[in-house]
């Protein structure tokens, strides 16, 4: 490839990568928080994100007739996000209650399999209910194409602005919630030592539910955002995106919230730059290669702490 052409593309690819990274980050936070509290991989998290995407589509199908929204576009957007976030939140809490909580005292693998079961179940139930073909998001009717910023060769569409902006707002909100409120303090206490926290009067079960709630709410929002970005949702999207997001949270140092955000942005950038400059077919290989390289050099991830083994 011509090097000048490549360099000219760089800023645009950077924006693309950042957008993708933001969506991964919203999703990665859910993996990261659940891991922090329960030390388990919530394989069903990607499915929660997918259901969020479908809930957003449900709102569109009610509120948008033909090509024009029945209400103000902004209002439609807000209703979509709120519906998806509430629905996904409830789903996440329900999954934890039914499929994970009874298994808390058993081996590490049991909740993993249960999570896989939930994932397979949700994927296929959504497929049965909504059909095998994806559902279209009329993004243009909600975010007019005119809302685009241009800096020379770089264009940032309204959708991308929305994704980046909303993700940053949500991440700041989460950070405040975890660091600055008594709920967040309770969650951190349970993550550090569940038993000790419950001696101190913290209801560990409630905090675990809360963790799933917060993570799933973010996943619901991410589902709508990705629907707007790709202008469609399908029942398989949760698995692939979930794996990417999980990779991102490991890259950043699993269990570390800022690490998950950083890991997701890095992964998004690596993927889109790799796709542009090497080959789209190998973008996943490049993403995983970066992950392996980081972990081999720093086994606890970008921001993870190397704790000495306690003897």
């Amino acid at each position: 490839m011509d090097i000048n052409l490549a360099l000219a593309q760089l800023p645009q690819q950077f924006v693309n990568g950042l957008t993708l990274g933001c969506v991964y980050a919203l999703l990665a936070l859910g993996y990261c928080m659940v891991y922090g509290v329960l030390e388990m991989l919530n394989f069903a998290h990607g499915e929660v994100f997918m259901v969020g995407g479908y809930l957003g589509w449900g709102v569109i199908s009610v509120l948008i007739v033909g090509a024009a929204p029945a209400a103000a576009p902004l209002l439609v957007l807000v209703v979509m996000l709120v519906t998806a976030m509430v629905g996904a939140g409830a789903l996440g809490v329900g999954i934890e209650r039914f499929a994970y909580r009874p298994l808390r005292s058993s081996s590490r693998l049991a909740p993993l399999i249960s999570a896989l079961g939930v994932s397979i179940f949700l994927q296929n139930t959504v497929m049965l209910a909504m059909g095998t073909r994806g559902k279209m998001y009329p993004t243009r009717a909600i975010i007019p194409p005119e809302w685009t910023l241009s800096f020379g060769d770089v264009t940032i569409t309204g959708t991308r602005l929305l994704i980046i902006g909303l993700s940053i707002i949500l991440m700041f909100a989460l950070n405040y919630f975890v660091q600055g409120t008594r709920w967040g303090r309770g969650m951190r206490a349970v993550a550090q030592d569940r038993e000790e926290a419950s001696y101190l009067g913290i209801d560990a079960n409630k905090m675990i539910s809360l963790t799933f709630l917060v993570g799933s709410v973010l996943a619901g929002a991410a589902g709508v955002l990705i629907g707007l970005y790709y202008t469609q949702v399908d029942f398989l999207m949760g698995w692939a995106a979930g794996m990417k997001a999980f990779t991102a949270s490991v890259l950043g140092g699993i269990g570390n919230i800022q690490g998950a955000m950083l890991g997701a942005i890095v992964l998004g950038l690596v993927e889109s730059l790799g796709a542009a400059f090497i080959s789209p077919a190998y973008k996943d290989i490049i993403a995983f290669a970066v992950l392996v390289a980081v972990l081999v050099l720093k086994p606890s991830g970008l921001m993870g702490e190397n704790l000495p083994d306690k003897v």
Partner: protein
Amino acid sequence: MERLGIISNNFTTLEAASSAMGRLRAAFDAIDQRYRLGAVVLLAAAFPFLVGQNPYLVRVAGTIGLYVMLAVGLNIVVGFAGLLDLGYVAFYAIGAYTYAFLASPHFGLHLPFLAVLPLAALAAAVCGVLLGYPVLRLRGDYLAIVTMGFGEIIRILLINLAPITNGPNGISKIDGANILGVNLNQVLEFGFLRSESVVNYYYLSLVFAAGCLLVASRLNRSRIGRAWQAIRDDETAAQCMGIHKSNLKLLAFASGALFAGVAGVIFAAWQQFVSPETFTLNEVVTIFCMIVLGGTGRLLGVVVGAVVLVTLPEFLREYSIYRMAIYGAVLVLIMRYRPQGLLGKAAERVRPVLAGDQVATLAERVESHCLPGPLAQPLPAGTPLLEVADLSKSFGGLKAVQGVSFTVRQGEIVSIIGPNGAGKTTLFNLISGLYRPSSGSIRYLGRSIVGLPPHRLAALGIVRTFQNLRLFGGMTVLENVLVGLHCRLEGGLLSIVLNTSSFRRTESIARAKAIALLDALGHGLAERRDDLVLTLTYADRRRVEIARALASGPRLLLLDEPVAGMNSAEAEEMMNRIGHLRDAGYTILLIEHHMNVVMGISDRVVVLDQGRKIAEGTPEAVQKDERVIEAYLGRRRSKWAKTTA
């Protein structure tokens, strides 16, 4: 409401089924293992003819055989060694594609099945080591994600390297298996018996599945299997018992990969077609489910898991489109109501080698066959065994140990005492190789041992116990002690797999020795040898930990608070026991807070405070030392000054 009724009905059915499963298992366990095995083998061998060579049923049964191979291999990695490998299917792909490359019109090569099989298995095993090496340091979920990445990379390469792999279309017209002139694709006739092609492949799959099970079960019962489980339960303790962690992890990766490679070859020869679609993450997930569903680590469970998960979607076929949703729900429900797996997680029962009353006679045999250990060559009393000079260790700004020097001589009991945070356990971690000193030297029998890994030190005869008891929780009492024998046992991979008579002899001597050790520690431990170690009382676990350390035949025994958590009678008994160990020729360095024990048995006492040695001498001298009293009770004058101020 009606639907709710159906759902709750399903719950009760499931619970009933699981309790029926429990009863079935009890009945099953009651039958002698040999008859059980014989019956299963007979049934499996007769199966195609019992169903009248029904091609559909035979194909499903053959598929079960393939999955048994895969699941047994993954079980070595996940169940035995505890390594979460989500890229396992890549080795299956490597096996299958190796056969496809070497025995198809694709490259015009048509090597015979029996020539490709070892090549493909080797290729998969080598890839297992190549994947394993860089990820050795990673733990648990990090390992899971990196291996998953590896699996995806292989799949994407298969899709995109079209000139070599023919891309997403895969490779077709692969040669069928032709074994020593017998073409399995043809109908074979044995007298009045006619065997269709699908039946031939069923037998191929059955033979290899049985072979994999046999090899895995032999590995599981050998020193290698025990070492894997020890690593799974507690890596650090395993290393300190003389287990070479990295090598054994690589061996687990390689063995698992090898099984998958073999399965891949059989798959390719049977289907005569391979494509990247077969080797997805979903496939790994299915194999994982088989292992967990049956009961992790249990080979019989793996077979049950494979049978259930291959046949379940077939039973659900009539619900066609709903079947995957039901499959997912069933997984959740099984985990919810039987999280330990359908067969439970009971330790695989090993036929008792010895009855209780045979212990004494065997103890004599142990004397004559004594496994070589450092104690075999006695040293004159008073020889300097361990010389620590000017040893320091800092963690960031914290100086945990500063310039400590002392010597331990053959036949001594030396105690290290000091207030909490004095650096006692750090000192032990330095001597046993878990930490590298910041400066200073540690010499053992005149040789520097700085930088040697814990497993090397155990082999040289330095072995330790832990303050917070680090037994292998998933193993029985006897197995824990046998892990201690690891570095004294010979027996390579080949002798284990072939179950040679010399391997069987060492194994039975090892068992006898372990039982004799347990017997020597009393408290009925020898009788309780097949109980899981976690069912023992705290004091008994301390005793087992000491038995485990003694099993490795050490010269120098490092005991970290051996009587912590014991009542005074138990502590006194332990104190006498430690005295007997010295009389038997062991040299002992111990950390202890229990002053009666320390003062009662020690030849010398080293006192640490804030990382420095503040006194050393006989118990009497140390007790009178001003600085020791000050370290424990505080300075009299300053205390006085505080209260008057």
